[in-house]
């Protein structure tokens, strides 16, 4: 026995689930439901892993990735490494609806977004600045570099490549607070 319609989302993001469910309950499309649900998470910065002001990169910048897929037509819109635009899932939907492409990335994706009417703004917040400054103070740990000098497990960059060496298995710094 199963009940339709149904919306399922990863992690206990209740507001996002409610937003998507509200769309379906009122007769909206599944695409609108997914877009609205993900957008709600972007607004609320769900657990810091969605939206602006989270997961700063090595240079302190927050960038966003998003994707939306229509299971009837197999149409897809996606953006990656999107900068300065908060509504990443909205831009992904725009890629699907206003281009024949599938995935736009980086600075060019941001330009596309601006041309489609999305507002460009700084994605940095006090929280992301603090995460970044703490990382710098801690000698840039944790760190995803390998086979570079100086030793990335102890030092910040800039890094240069060094001969590839057999390395002990390293624990990846991915956890409940830092994930895709």
């Amino acid at each position, binding site marked *: 026995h*199963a*009940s*339709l*319609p*149904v*919306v*399922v*989302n*990863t*992690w*206990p*993001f*209740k507001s*996002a*689930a409610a937003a*998507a*469910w509200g769309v379906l309950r009122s007769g909206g*499309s*599944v695409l609108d*439901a*997914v877009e609205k*649900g*993900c957008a709600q*998470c*972007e607004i609320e910065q769900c657990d*810091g*892993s*969605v*939206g602006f002001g*989270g*997961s*700063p*990169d090595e*240079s302190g*910048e927050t*960038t*966003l*990735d*998003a*994707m*939306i*897929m229509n299971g*009837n037509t197999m149409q897809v819109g*996606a953006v*990656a*490494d999107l900068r300065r635009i908060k509504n990443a*899932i909205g831009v*992904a939907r725009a890629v699907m609806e206003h281009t024949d492409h*599938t995935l736009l990335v980086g600075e060019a994706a941001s330009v596309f977004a601006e041309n489609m009417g999305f507002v460009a703004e700084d994605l940095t917040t006090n929280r992301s600045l603090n*995460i970044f400054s703490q*990382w710098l103070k801690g000698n*840039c740990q944790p*760190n*995803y570099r390998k086979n570079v000098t100086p030793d990335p497990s102890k030092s910040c960059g800039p890094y240069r490549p060094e001969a590839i060496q057999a390395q002990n298995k390293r624990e*990846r*710094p991915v*956890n409940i607070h*830092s*994930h*895709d």
Partner: protein
Amino acid sequence: TIGMIALDKKGNMAAGTSTNGLTHKIPGRVGDSPIIGAGAYADSSAGAAAATGDGDLMMRFLPSYLAVELMRAGADPSAACKSAISRIKRFYPDFFGAIVCANTTGHYGAACNKAPSLTQFHYMVSNSESDTPVMKSADC
């Protein structure tokens, strides 16, 4: 990261993801979320799935695509999710990740890989039975 799948009464399916990725990533790094078949996948004739976790590892196995294809072949959503996780675990026993799956009849399931910071995976389900989002969990 949020991954979401939706199915309406007419059998229309969609999937989506949104994330700001891993903290302290190297600039330019992109994870699994915007990659079709990795972060999510939907095929209204078979099912939909959405994955979350360590995208650098998970994207190598297209777990969402795999789960949908397993459902197409008759696997129930929970079994499809578990198989997609197992495929990754063979190479990366300690990887951090989870996946949610739903088939064309509205049945759903989830699976995760047990890791130090992930022993139970929580996810949300909304359907006409509950008429409100309900938190579910899967033991990893």
